[in-house]
């Protein structure tokens, strides 16, 4: 075996979006360490957790072009599952008497709990996906909205295991900017590997033209299930981290507002690239944070600048409208961060091990 010329550069080009985005995010986190501002750190950790969720949405929605609303449900399922496995048994015996004995007794470390919770979510997503993804694009979107409503209603009323409308408290709060960053990089890695795999290629083809994709051997239903399920795994990670970042779980936190903001992030950044997902999270988080401060009121000398409550949502809605009207493919328009080390076309083409005719 000889290594074909240019293959190392080719490999690097493939993973470049992941490398460049990871470097940028790491730099941001390190900068916040240096500044040591708790509010800034909190905002960054929240944004990174949102990023994981948006990357999970991107895996399905970005590659399939099918809008799905069930994302927050998968985050919720994972978050509660992790709570069941990490809360103190003595606490669960009182507050969640409906749990099976082995879950009440369980007291797992954060990492195994996270992985098990994400896997459970993956299984649920597989079953739901198998049921609803046979529908055509728009019908599947509506069905996924029904999944969101069902998930919310079930967890909101299933008092004996979710505590219903009361908050679940006492989750180990192990999530800081570093933990969130590590999982964000893992999530982006999963998304990138999927995107360059033959599975991702096939699904993107169906996004461009479903009939043509079917004619060229793509089983659209199967490919959509794969992405839906994989996306749910990443959404599960996001849900678990959110629970263990806040230390508190409420069913309400995994409903319409979260659904809207995460989809808005993906649409603003551009749903057809990983960089778009990251840019969307950054822009929307920034706008949200600025307006959250303005709603509280900001002292400027003698003046207090304050905007009415709810301005944050209104402004976000307006931004999303403007993007949809003027830049429907989002800020990144499906592009990744470009390879900065010169354009050598040969290196991007297949390295053919040519047989030379005698």
């Amino acid at each position, binding site marked *: 075996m000889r290594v074909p010329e240019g293959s190392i550069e080719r490999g690097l080009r493939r993973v470049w979006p992941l490398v460049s985005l990871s470097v940028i995010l790491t730099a941001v986190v390190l900068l916040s360490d240096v500044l040591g501002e708790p509010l800034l750190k909190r905002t960054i950790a929240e944004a990174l957790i949102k990023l994981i969720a948006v990357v999970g949405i991107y895996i399905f929605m970005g590659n399939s072009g099918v809008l799905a609303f069930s994302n927050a449900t998968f985050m919720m399922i994972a978050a509660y599952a992790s709570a069941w496995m990490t809360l103190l048994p003595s606490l669960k015996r009182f507050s969640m008497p409906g749990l099976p004995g082995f879950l009440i007794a369980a007291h797992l470390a954060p990492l195994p709990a996270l992985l098990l919770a994400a896997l459970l979510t993956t299984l649920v997503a597989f079953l739901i996906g198998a049921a609803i993804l046979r529908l055509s694009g728009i019908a599947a979107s509506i069905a996924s909205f029904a999944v969101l409503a069902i998930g919310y209603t079930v967890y909101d009323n299933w008092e004996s295991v979710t505590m219903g409308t009361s908050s679940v408290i006492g989750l180990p709060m192990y999530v800081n900017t570093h933990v969130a960053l590590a999982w964000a990089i893992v999530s982006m890695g999963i998304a990138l590997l999927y995107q360059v795999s033959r599975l991702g290629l096939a699904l993107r083809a169906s996004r461009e033209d479903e*009939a043509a994709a079917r004619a060229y051997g793509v089983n659209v239903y199967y490919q959509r299930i794969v992405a839906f399920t994989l996306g749910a795994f990443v959404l599960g990670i996001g849900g678990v981290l959110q629970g263990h970042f806040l230390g508190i779980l409420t069913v309400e936190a995994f409903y319409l507002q979260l659904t809207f903001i995460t989809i808005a992030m993906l649409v603003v950044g551009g749903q057809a690239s990983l960089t778009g997902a990251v840019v969307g999270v950054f822009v929307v988080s920034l706008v949200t944070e600025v307006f959250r401060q303005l709603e509280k009121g900001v002292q400027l000398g003698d003046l207090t600048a304050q905007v009415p409550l709810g301005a944050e949502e209104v402004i976000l809605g307006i931004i999303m409208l403007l993007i949809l009207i003027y830049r429907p493919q989002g800020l990144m328009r499906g592009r990744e961060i470009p390879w900065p080390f010169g354009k050598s076309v040969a290196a991007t*083409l297949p390295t053919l091990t040519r047989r030379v005719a005698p």
Partner: protein
Amino acid sequence: MTQHADPVLAATAPAGVASERLEVSDAAVKFEGLAAIDGVSFALQRGDIFGLIGPNGAGKTTLVNVVSGFQHPSRGKVLLDGRDITSWSAHRRGTHGLVRTFQAVRLFRAMTVLENLEVAAVGAGLGRRAAERRAYEILEWMGDAHRALDRADALPYGDERRVGIGRALAMAPRYLLLDEPAAGLGDAECDQLMQLMARVPQDFRCGVLLIEHNMRLIMGVCHRIHVIDSGRTIAEGSPSQIRNDPAVIRAYLGSKSERRRARN
């Protein structure tokens, strides 16, 4: 050229074995009682270029949809090398070597030319790397390797149509259905396409079903021609037989004179 001996590019079985054929038997499609095609039968040998012609609205596209699995026939069968595939889905037919192109081409627009062909190669069961190599080899075969990294929606019209055929070839088809590949092409581009097409059966060891309006192309490359009008077969034979068939002349001249009458 090394492609002939390349097991990746060409399927292994020799062309022209008697049982290797794509057969349509008594196919009929009715839309709300109206017959788009009615009792059409033909067989295409592997290694042949088989022309399917007919005036506008004769049912050509409906027939292609039946063969490729995009339209379920109300009656009749499609047989692939003797196997009944009438109930198979489009993607399953594709993975078994029955591949079509589209009149409107339908490239994957936001993807590169190379990726367009890779999708088909992956669809035929290749791994990512082998698919990329086959895609690139076919682009070289067509003389379009320099376009490999261009986005499909940036291609000029003629190139777009050629890439559409390349994408179908990337599945290593045993039978290739070309739905009006020359639509809208100028004479020079059409000649170029004709030369390319004439090489397909040999280089890819496949049979070609060519649906066209362009008589020059049909008469230039087809070994046999099947003519339908108003959903029914009116003739089948070699190009010279078809050129002199009274029923064919009537169908074409008739429709032309009617058109003339409608204009005046």
